[in-house]
């Protein structure tokens, strides 16, 4: 009799197990057939997030409060020395900045001449990282800003040091950000020196490694070369630093296997910036007070400009870039600027020294002082 009961109990247990598994498999099949976030599972996710994120948010903010209090009011050892070092660094950077601003102005003028329109970052929202997804396979984070703060899906997320990822799902007070090292992520990038384009994504082994794909094996890629966003994905603004090439090897098929070291430490993110607004506009050629974009500082140069002067004599430079580099004035009117490529050799070689640009203008965040708070370095 005992055996019969035991056998019946085992059969019943197996039926329950099978039922639970079948239900989940059917649910999975439905989600795979339709987009997972279309609404069928959103309610469950919102419930789970509503339970978890308020607690993590409270813990993170409490910890930050104690940390700030300690570091700002108690532990100030070495601050004076650090201040002196920073002052010296500012002097050095200002000297470098003069040259870089000149290069940036030159690029902007050339872009204007070519009728280029680019995306300018005009509004950002700082956010705090409050939790991860809790899965080793899922490289994503939750931030403490959601639709109430104007966050929307596909908005790029960055730090002052580089690209972080994009907003994947938005909830009222939180958002899920897919990091660029997730295997399902993808960003259009360009190698700074060789100008080769590729797609950046996470390694399929889900170990957090960044890989650059779609670069042909006959191309030459150097270790240490910087990688910038190309803007081709229409999510990330062009010219933002993503990382550097850390290893190059032969890959599958005809492509190189390029490993990338991210510019931002993606496993230690605490604060990020969500770019909530970008504008398409032509660069201001002569407005020295206009915000200087980070991409200009990254020496995003144009390959060619207008055709060489008639006759070609007296013009040693064949490319527009080189020509313009030799003829760039500092502050000119638009009329003068339009004349630059037509008669390059007669322009004054000596450039005017432009006004120093405020440090805040160099960062990707511009305008909107109430929302563009500075985010501490990682």
């Amino acid at each position, binding site marked *: 009799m005992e055996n019969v009961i035991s056998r019946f109990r085992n059969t019943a247990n197996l039926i329950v197990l099978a039922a639970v598994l079948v239900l989940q498999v059917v*649910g999975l099949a439905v989600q795979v057939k339709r987009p997972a976030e279309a609404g069928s599972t959103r309610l469950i996710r919102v419930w789970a997030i509503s339970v978890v994120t308020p607690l993590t948010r409270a813990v993170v903010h409490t910890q930050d409060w104690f940390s700030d209090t300690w570091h700002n009011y108690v532990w100030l050892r070495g601050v004076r020395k650090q201040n002196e070092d920073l002052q010296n660094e500012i002097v050095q950077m200002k000297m470098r900045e003069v040259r870089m601003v000149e290069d940036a102005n030159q690029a902007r003028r050339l872009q204007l001449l070519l009728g280029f329109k680019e995306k300018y970052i005009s509004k950002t929202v700082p956010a705090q990282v409050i939790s991860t997804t809790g899965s080793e396979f899922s490289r994503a984070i939750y931030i403490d800003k959601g639709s109430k703060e104007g966050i929307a899906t596909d908005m790029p997320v960055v730090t002052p040091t580089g690209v972080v990822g994009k907003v994947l799902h938005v909830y009222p007070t939180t958002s899920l950000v897919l990091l660029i090292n997730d295997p399902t992520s993808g960003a259009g990038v360009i190698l700074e020196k060789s100008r080769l384009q590729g797609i950046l994504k996470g390694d399929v082994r889900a170990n957090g490694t960044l890989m650059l794909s779609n670069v042909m094996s006959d191309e030459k890629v150097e270790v240490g070369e910087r990688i910038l966003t190309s803007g081709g994905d229409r999510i990330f603004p062009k010219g933002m630093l993503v990382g550097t090439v850390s290893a190059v090897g032969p890959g599958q098929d005809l492509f190189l296997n390029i490993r990338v070291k991210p510019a931002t430490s993606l496993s230690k993110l605490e604060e990020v910036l969500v770019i909530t607004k970008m504008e398409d506009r032509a660069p201001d050629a002569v407005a020295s007070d206009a915000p200087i974009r980070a991409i200009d500082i990254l020496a995003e140069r144009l390959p060619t400009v207008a055709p060489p002067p008639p006759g070609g004599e007296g013009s040693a430079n064949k490319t527009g870039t080189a020509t313009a580099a030799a003829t760039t004035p500092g502050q000119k009117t638009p009329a003068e600027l339009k004349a630059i490529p037509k008669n390059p050799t007669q322009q004054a070689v000596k450039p005017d020294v432009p006004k120093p640009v405020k440090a805040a203008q160099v960062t990707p965040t511009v305008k909107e002082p109430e929302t563009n708070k500075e985010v501490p370095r990682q």
Partner: protein
Amino acid sequence: MTNQRPDRIEVYRFNPAVTVGVVIASLILQAFLPVKLGFFRVFDLPLIVTIFFAVARRSQVTGCLTGAVIGLLQDSLAHQPLGVFGIAKTVVGYAASSLGAKIDVENPGSRLLMTMGFYLVHESIYLVIARGLVGLDRQWMWGHELRNAVANAVLAVVVFAVLDKFKQR
């Protein structure tokens, strides 16, 4: 591990508040700690909690249902379809309670080995579902999985010792 007669194996119960609290705490810690401690990503606290409750209760139905709920909650926080972790933890919950009903897994050595084994089972089921049903691009790496299995097993010994205090006969 010692083989015992089923009627001699003790079955434990838990206060419902403790069960819910421990499950939610494991999910919160799993989501929060990697923000501050990056290495914590290798741990799977919800899996450890699933194994603990399954082994302690020794009821296969309760074990698989607990695993399903914890797995689905974990899925809902990740950006993947609901059910990937759910199925893996359902199977682990059922298997752990079956094991707990047959043998005694009260000492740290047996808990270490048991958690290592169940971690590998969990990961292999996850991989099969992720690749076969969902179409996610995932790869199995033996070194990585074994290292994580050992890490989770060591953590499980500590967590089990803490959770033992909530057991009721």
